[in-house]
């Protein structure tokens, strides 16, 4: 395996965040190909522990975390820091909370 790494934003087709109802935020990483999806999965970089660290949420509070073969996607759902749209809201639609995922670096290109 090469020592070089690349941020996910240069590999994935979609990296986004959005409300899933007023009390949850959901994050999607969709890959262009099955090969890219598998390579990132195999790298072992994307874990519950990493999500816990990036989003300051205990691993046991992560609602959904998974690699989904059928759609070549990683899906992560977390409790919202506060109920959507109340006092102190910074992102009504939670549409701009994805950036820490963009910056995750994975070993790339994959050298077999």
């Amino acid at each position, binding site marked *: 395996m090469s020592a070089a790494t690349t941020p996910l934003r240069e590999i994935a087709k979609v990296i986004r965040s959005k409300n899933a109802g007023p009390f949850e935020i959901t994050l999607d990483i969709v890959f262009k190909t099955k090969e890219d999806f598998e390579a990132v999965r195999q790298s072992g970089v994307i874990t519950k522990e990493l999500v816990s660290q990036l989003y300051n949420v205990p691993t046991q509070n992560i609602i959904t975390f998974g690699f989904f073969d059928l*759609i070549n996607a990683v899906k992560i759902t977390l409790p919202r820091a506060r109920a959507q749209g109340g006092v102190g809201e910074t992102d009504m639609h939670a549409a701009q909370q994805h950036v820490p995922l963009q910056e995750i670096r994975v070993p790339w290109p994959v050298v077999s």
Partner: protein
Amino acid sequence: MAACGQVNMATASNDEIRILTPSGMLGYGFPVDHFRRGLALKPHAITIDSGSTDSGPQKLGKGEMTCSREAYVKDIEVLLQAQHETRIPVLISSAGGDGTNLHVDVFRDIIAEIAKRRGWQFKLASIYANIDKAHIARELRAGRVEPLGPVPPLDPREIDAATVVVAQMGAEPFLKALDESEGVDVIVSGRAYDPSPTAAMAIRAGFDPALAWHMGKIMECGALCAEPVGRNVMGYLRQDHFEIEPLNPEERCTTASVAAHTLYEKTHPFLLPGPGGTLDLSQCKYEQVTDRRVRVSGSRFIPSNPYTVKLEGAKTSGYRSIFIAGARDPIFIAQIDGLLEKVFAATRAYFSDVPPETYRIIPHLYGKNGVMGDLEPVTTPAHELCIIVEVAAATQSLATAICGKARTTLMHAPYPGRIATAGNLASPFTPLEIPLGEACEFNVYHLMKVDSPTALFPIRYEEIRA
């Protein structure tokens, strides 16, 4: 004529039901030429949702609608014109965005006005979704109300505090409305699970509920499942599969775009809980039929026992005012956090007669961490900041007064190394303090067990005449 809905369903083929959905959100507008292209394909019904919690709690909390009345009139007139020409039923769900009784009646009035102006007549069913608070309190005491996801258990005081509480109806109230009278041409409903109108039409025609729910789940977003995303979409439901195709010839559905659609705004990509059960898409098969059309099979529906509905409610929580100001001085920007702490402490000291727990002062620092707050990984601020200070208090005038005190204190606050002694802030707007009106927050988001999927959702029938 009153029986038109039924006549259409009776003449629908046993092999296929076609549903046309012009948009994922009534009131956002949709290309009418593509909609009419869809009508030429002889759909058996038109369904469209107007519901969402996504733009915030102020709809439920203050009775606001997602779109303007004018926008709803525009879209609804296109739908009623289609109904008048084709006599197929039109089903509109979650009136106004929150689906309260108030907004069902607004939609009902819009529909009656258009019919009067255009000289149309038809049979209308209005289905209501406000839930009696005393009923919820009783069910809560009986242990039949539970949190939905990461939500605290329901406190009976929150039921009282909510402006209104609605429940998301399933397909059953629509089925009841379609069956109960001599045939209904137009249905406008209060809060509904978004796929319910489409699922109801397909279930009523005898098709597999799992496929009906899955097709409804995709179509409730219009052509969001296409590439590029669009508005008008047509669904073809058959015995063991359904097909989906956008009506804009520039758009295409692909196996990837349709399969990935259920990621969007959902907790889980394959398990979609709704009224009466959970849709399981983990075993689905997606096939490319043409370069623009996808066939879906293998959807499963797991009924829940007992039947549950989702309750939604919001309350008002005081008033807010903000100020907006720029900062460009690097000496000031480097000390912003400590300075704000001092300014807010001074502001609180000045308002020592106001109980401190009754108001909040919250900074939003764009250029530093305004979007992500504590989660922001970048620690170096930008060369200029947009500072927004949000104050929430019991009355509008108090919120504005606290906000004003915080602004003037920050404007003139001394700090180490200060050489710009005339003022710390660049203010773009007047009023310098901006009143935002009442704040709202979601306070009911719970599942309630019900004995009957229809009993909580009363239906009113009427003949609309010119």
